[in-house]
């Protein structure tokens, strides 16, 4: 009896958490312009409109450019930084760590606003440089964290053994450490890419109309129109994220990545 009550409660809370996503997917296939749930028919017209709408096409291109640059740079920066703070103590390390972890705490609009001001000083407001820089700072902590955890799980004896057997420091790094932390780097890169693709608040400050990313274009559309085109894009994003999460759970183990064991 107790457990029936408990699982009903869990189910009810899960309905609250997933209802919005279900509604979006359902409304995206509705043939009429008015929101209807459950849908009154089946049509892909909003998908066609979403995929052919020029603003979304250019915005998607911008998003891919920013995502590719920011997540790749973040993987390089986050991995080397994790290696640095894992192995070395040096003067100013605390300050450096504070600077590179702080984007987790600083409100995204403060970060975005700062880069807007910096960009206008440097005359960079029309290009991708400032957007990539802002995204790089926002997503790097997630890579650093993932790689740092991987480094902590690597047995230091492997590196020592390789060094004893005559491997150079580069040999140890590229042939021993790197392959062992590669899953962490890949996980970090994946998280960085998804977070960059969906980042909105800071992007709103640092993008110009020519460089706006997909979430910014979606926001501008929502403010002007009320048809289900956004439902179609949202449904595509929700479905692809869910598939990625199921795959990540299967191959990498979400609970292990998140540090949740079974008590």
């Amino acid at each position, binding site marked *: 009896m107790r457990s029936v009550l408990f699982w009903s409660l869990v189910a009810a809370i899960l309905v609250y958490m997933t209802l919005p996503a279900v509604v979006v997917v359902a409304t995206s296939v509705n043939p009429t312009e008015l929101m209807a749930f459950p849908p009154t028919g089946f049509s892909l017209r909003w998908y066609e409109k979403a995929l052919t709408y020029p603003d979304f096409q250019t915005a998607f291109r911008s998003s891919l450019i920013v995502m590719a640059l920011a997540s790749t740079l973040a993987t390089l920066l986050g991995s080397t930084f994790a290696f640095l703070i894992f192995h070395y103590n040096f003067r100013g390390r605390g300050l450096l760590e504070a600077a590179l972890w702080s984007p987790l705490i600083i409100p995204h609009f403060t970060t975005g606003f*700062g880069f807007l001001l910096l960009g206008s000083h440097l005359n960079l407001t029309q290009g991708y440089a400032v957007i990539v820089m802002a995204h790089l700072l926002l997503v790097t902590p997630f890579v650093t964290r993932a790689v740092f955890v991987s480094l902590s799980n690597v047995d230091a004896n492997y590196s020592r053994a390789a060094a004893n057997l005559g491997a150079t420091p580069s040999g140890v790094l590229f042939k021993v450490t790197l392959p062992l932390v590669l899953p962490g780097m890949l996980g970090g890169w994946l998280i960085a890419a998804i977070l960059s693709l969906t980042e909105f*608040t800071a992007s709103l400050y640092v993008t110009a109309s020519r460089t706006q990313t997909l979430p910014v274009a979606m926001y501008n559309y929502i403010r002007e129109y009320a048809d289900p085109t956004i439902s179609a894009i949202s449904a595509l994003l929700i479905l692809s994220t869910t598939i990625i999460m199921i795959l990540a759970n299967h191959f990498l183990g979400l609970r292990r990545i998140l540090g949740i064991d079974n*008590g």
Partner: protein
Amino acid sequence: MMMTQQRPFFVPFLVPAVLVAVIFAAAMFNVFQYSFLEFIPGSVEVGGFTLDNFTRINRPVYYWVLLDTFLLSFATAFFALVLSYPISFALVRAEKNWVRSVLVVLAITPLFTGEIVRTYSWMLVLGTDGVVNNTLKALSLIDASIPIMYTRAGVVIALVQFAMPVMIILLATAISQVKRDCEKAAANLGATPNTVFWRVTIPLTMPGILSGFVVVFAWTMSAFSTPQLIGGGKVLMISNVVYLQGFSSFNLPFAAVLSLIALGAALGSLGLMKLATARFERNLATA
């Protein structure tokens, strides 16, 4: 040479980190600098040094915005905690592996769909012709749509769901560290399952509860798109006023002051959490 032999890759790994940190510091310094510059109405250019931007905050309308931001964040953290605990508990303790997998995917995915998608979804659920209103009408419980959009309640309903994935992760980590032996010992000594839960499990997961509450609180203080779209200008949080000041009035100096206040509030609440957690752990150690 000796240096590089002892510390391979130290310099090449240090340089990019320092470079990026300096660029970020420059961006933050710009915000700090602008907060002391004079606003010239009708222009994005700024004047000389002034403290006027800080005295401008001393108006009732801004006190209300700060109070609203605080109360909405507090309510969000509270409801997110209450709703997340059962999910985290089930996520850790479910016996079947597939149940745990389904729970973790359902609980974590919303974190990665992005704030625009999530906020838009809630607009469809809470709107005048949204799912909630239409369902209530179909059941003849109400005659006319009740307003949920553009109210504080609507904003909190969306913000709580927004915050739950993070809360669930933090609580589940805490629950997974509880030693089952403690619970079994209490049960063996005659405690009812209720007593075990409230007197053993909850106190042992208190560090997770505290950090989850404060992280969500600080996070919600800087929420932007949910109050912007669900609040629709009728519910204003500090982020919305920063945006209004920056992009409608072009008062960049005052927007800078408000950004600094938001930053201070976020840092302050995390500092409080450290204090509270340290005190709690000390009490636990001496108890």
